């Protein structure tokens, strides 16, 4: 065999076939969904008109805006606090190196259920169960926070060094004393990080649950959309963006201080 025939890289036929199939499916799906340039250009035109009507933002109804934002903020803070309180024991019980398997496995299952549904769906369920208003929003976001923090916290606990745990047990420490002295110090800073991240996303999420009637600025936003008050819509959007920026700034500061 000549030297030129030797291949340095084997052809990956599976990858080539996969990319070809993906390209074909994209073409097929585009045709199926009737996505055409004509529709896109009409859409861009409409969007231009929408933006034109959004400007300038109208803060005349600032009281309504402030009320909604405040409610969203309260939903976010309350649900994060409740979620943290509940996720602390849940996370410890779900950690397989701390809890016995017959506890860890069902708790993990419970956490998985909390995480399996999107929070908007959970919010719809709570609106049906508890009625319209902030209570449903707080409940929905608490479930979401609990699932998120508990899962990550359990994983962090599973990564700790068991050596200090062994030492604390050898000194005669009871289960809770060992947790407080040897487990929590190893995961405290990561736990704080998860909580800050969850507060961040709850601020965002709390602006949305209102759309399904679970309280907060989302309801005001949705109503403004339906009444074609686009200048008020843009005022609400600006307020939400400002709030998220502020939260980002604050949690960044706290994170830096924790290091």
């Amino acid at each position: 065999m000549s030297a030129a025939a030797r291949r340095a890289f084997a052809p990956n036929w599976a990858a080539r076939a996969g990319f070809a199939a993906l390209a074909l499916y994209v073409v097929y799906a585009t045709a199926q969904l009737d996505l055409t340039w004509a529709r896109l250009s009409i859409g861009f035109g409409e969007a231009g008109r929408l933006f034109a009507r959004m400007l300038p933002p109208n803060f005349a109804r600032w009281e309504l805006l402030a009320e909604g934002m405040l409610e969203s903020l309260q939903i976010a803070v309350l649900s994060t606090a409740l979620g943290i309180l509940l996720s602390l024991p849940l996370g410890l019980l779900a950690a397989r190196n701390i809890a016995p398997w017959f506890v860890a496995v069902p708790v993990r299952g419970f956490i998985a259920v909390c995480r399996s549904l999107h929070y908007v769906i959970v919010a719809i369920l709570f609106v049906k169960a508890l009625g319209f208003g902030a209570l449903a929003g707080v409940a929905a976001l608490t479930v979401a926070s609990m699932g998120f923090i508990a899962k990550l916290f359990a994983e962090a606990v599973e990564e700790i060094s068991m050596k200090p745990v062994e030492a604390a047990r050898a000194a005669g420490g009871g289960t809770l004393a060992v947790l407080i002295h040897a487990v929590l110090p190893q995961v405290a800073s990561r736990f704080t990080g998860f909580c800050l991240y969850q507060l961040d996303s709850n601020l965002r999420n709390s602006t949305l649950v209102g759309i399904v009637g679970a309280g907060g600025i989302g309801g005001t936003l949705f109503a403004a959309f339906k009444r074609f008050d686009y200048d008020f819509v843009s005022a609400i959007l600006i307020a939400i963006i400002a709030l998220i920026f502020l939260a980002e700034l604050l949690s960044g500061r706290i994170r830096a201080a924790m290091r």
Partner: protein
Amino acid sequence: MLAPSPPLSIRGLFKEYVPGKPVLRGLDLDVEAEGITAIIGPSGTGKSTLLRCINRLVEPTSGEIRLHGENLAALRGRALRLARRRIGMVFQEYNLVERLSVMENVLCGRLGHVALWRVFLRRYPQADIDRAFALLDAVGLPEHATRRADALSGGQRQRVGIARALMQRPDLLLADEPTSSLDPRTAVEVLELLARLTGEVGVPVLLNIHNVELARRFARRVIGLSEGAVIYDGPPDGLRDAHLRAIYGGEDWL
């Protein structure tokens, strides 16, 4: 303090991690009220298992372990925790909580005594704090109380480990390869410290150690283990090359 019978008495201690493959095979051992008893033997021969059976970090398969008459092997729950408070342990890799301060690590020795809320709020009784400071002075770390454990060198960490064990006012101290992670000079210094401080309060020490020379130098008695059974038991100067060959096997390394 001194009991007429040996404070620690082990009878027929069996341990198998895998059924049918015993690590300890019916071990009998008495430990006197004072001084260092060194346990030497090849890796995997059950030295660590023996120490961990005594404070029940490892569950013995069968046998009796009596500390001042009480059978540790039969204890459960609260009784076991109360017994563990009387047994200090020093670990090869120090087993400190790295993110906590030296003082907090030393006070870990009081975990079995102090109320939970005090542990949580770090409101330890003043007597404990005074004793912790005294122990930090004794192990030569008077200025280090508020430093984080992960800021210390290996030798300093092991000194904290010794202070933590003595904080318990133990009836017995278990030291599992306390110098294996240290350089030779620090190893000697740490063992000197361990011998001096435990000698002052008359606490017997059970010391696992790989270094035969150090065992000879610091121990009052040497026990040679091989395959879970006692090969040699006697004073350090009675330990001959023939014993070492029997304990570790082979010829050429001596």
